[in-house]
């Protein structure tokens, strides 16, 4: 049985590594999941495979060692959390850059002169600008969120204008409205 498991683990990890090498972010996430499945099976195998021997003291012996299962359970929980976090990062990247591709992160896109934030695929979730403020400001109210949305709309409108002006105009507008 160990031999079969070894092959299954090899296939899972192999598939995982193959997907990990992809440029598409979601495939990378799926690849990592495959790797963690393979790893979980590896722990189970290393802890000893035995049939018809539940780790229950109410049953007669033999027992299988329950600890590897506890380890796997912990690993699954942690893997779930990290996968969720990675997917959140992927969604954020998609919103900021408009790609589901590692190229979304690429330095070449950062050079897009008309739009320092890249092409926003989802204008209802603009990426927050990090204010370089010395003084602490309260959290943005609904008005401010409206402004942020309006700004990304304006940015789309002015996308074809030459270097930097769209940004300046929107900034001025925001400042005026703030005043």
């Amino acid at each position: 049985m160990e031999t079969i498991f070894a092959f299954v683990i090899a296939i899972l990890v192999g598939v995982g590594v193959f997907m990990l090498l992809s440029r598409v972010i979601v495939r990378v996430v799926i690849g990592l999941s495959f790797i963690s499945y393979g790893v979980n099976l590896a722990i189970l195998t290393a802890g000893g495979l035995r049939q018809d021997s539940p780790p229950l003291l109410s049953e007669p012996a033999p027992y299988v060692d329950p600890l590897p299962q506890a380890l796997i359970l912990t690993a699954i929980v942690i893997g779930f959390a990290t996968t969720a976090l990675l997917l959140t990062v992927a969604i954020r990247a998609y919103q900021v850059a408009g790609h589901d591709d590692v190229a979304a992160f690429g330095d070449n896109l950062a050079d897009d002169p008309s739009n320092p934030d890249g092409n926003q695929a989802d204008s209802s979730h603009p990426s927050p600008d990090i204010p370089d403020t010395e003084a602490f400001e309260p959290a943005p109210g609904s008005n401010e969120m409206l402004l942020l949305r309006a700004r990304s709309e304006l940015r789309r409108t002015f996308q074809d204008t030459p270097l930097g002006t769209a940004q300046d105009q929107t900034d001025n507008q925001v400042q005026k409205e703030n005043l």
Partner: protein
Amino acid sequence: MTVPDPIQLSWPLPGTESALPAAPVILALGTGLLLMLPLSRAARSALSIGVTLLMTVLSALLVWSTGDGTVLSHTMGAWAAPFGIVLVADRLSAWMSLLTSVSLLMTVLYSAAFPDRVREQYHLFALLQLLAAGVQLSFLTGDLFNLFVAFEVMLVASYALTVLGSTREQLREGFRYIVMNLVASALLVATCGMIYGLLGTLNMAHLAQRATELGPSHYVSAFSTLLLIVFASKSAQFPLGFWLPGTYPAVPVAVGAFFGAILTKVGIYALIRTFSTMFTQEPLIAQTTLLILGSATMLFGALGLVSQREWRRILSFAVVTSVGYMAFGLGIGTPEALDATLFYMTVSVLVTSAMFLLAGIAEKATGTSYITVRGMLEHRPLWAAAFMLGALTIAGLPPTGGFIAKFALVQAGFAASSPLTPLIYLGILSALLSSLIILYAMLNIWRGFFWGKAAKDKEVQLRPVSLRQQAPMLLAMFTVAATALAAGPLGGLTSRIAAQLADPQQYISGVLGDRPVQIPPAPTAEDPEAPDHPSSISPARRAPKAEEDHP
């Protein structure tokens, strides 16, 4: 079920059971959760600073209580030592815990002085405490699988901190960082499972005992090499460390200071623990690998230093170089070399933290992340003095602690008589060469930022940086200066740590006691459904662990 003994809060000595090792972890974890409550900014920063001060006191108490060689251990949930999880503080763990608390203090003070609305709204302070909880747990745990859990707590907090703010650079570097670390973690958890399959335990002290009973074994060597790969990637050794120089400049300054100072050192700590405490049977394989990796890392980092023109990118490569030095020190393998490595690690933690904070206020004042500003010596002489201290420490010139550390490392390399002498000489050569290159890179910053006069048309408008905002940097620089001024006591401390590590029996008997481990009989009386049982619960080679409880 037996009622666990009441947790002893009495003073640790002379018994070794003490709740003290759990204190920094629980404190940080609890504060992290507390900080997620909707508090005002003032309350959050005051709470963070207060708790971090308390954590520093607790860590100092740990260092003090372990100073005479006592190994404090705390059994979580009162499950006896090899079966449940233990938190252990020997001299090394306690010292690393103190370094963590001190770096966290600088980071929290700096974050409190520089408001950052968006990141604080998304729980910057809470994440910093959770990160510290993970780091403290990594240093203080005495269980291999719990080390993995601690790594994950630490890494999940660091992932969140890396991408917090969602700038494009952060997302790019954060994604690389997360994927790289997830792969390494998968390897770590697989290795844990296989080590359990081979040795039947995950308690570090018990692992050490069983590995010694087993004698030199190819399996143990293979698994310890797997651990070596994992920890080398966590500590950014050369072929596995490409994520580091991009990630650390992308995160906010204060967070970068903590990352640079502590996170790579967690990997180094785990390497020390693996090869000085757990698997001491065949040291040559690990030492060969570490010498080669260390030499390559030093040179890679040094060349990276020269290639960069931005403050924090330069400093990130300095972190890479320092990790190379530590790997080299571990590769030499003598107690003297370990002593020098620990001294170097102390200096490196403090100076990295200080230099990142200096970079932060320099960037804040000039409004650019580049070093090509010129003429800051006139405007900010204090910063120039602080930079010189930090630069000399990183480059390793007298009269700084960096010089003492590197001198001790090289001396230990020459003094070592091991079959790896050619590799050690190679390491010494690259250590000296990379020190020279680091000096050149530091002088580059000096020339670019402080020296000369700014061109008339490029006169920089300096933004004000208040004394409160400079204070964390000055405090950190003071600790850097202290490593030179108090080099004697510090050296004594690190050599005592190294002496304790040279004798793993102290750790083992501190955790397991002096009697051999008893496998308890199967429970009988309490469980009405299971009146009597054969004691076949434990196959000969595998001890059942009663329960794992994880944070």
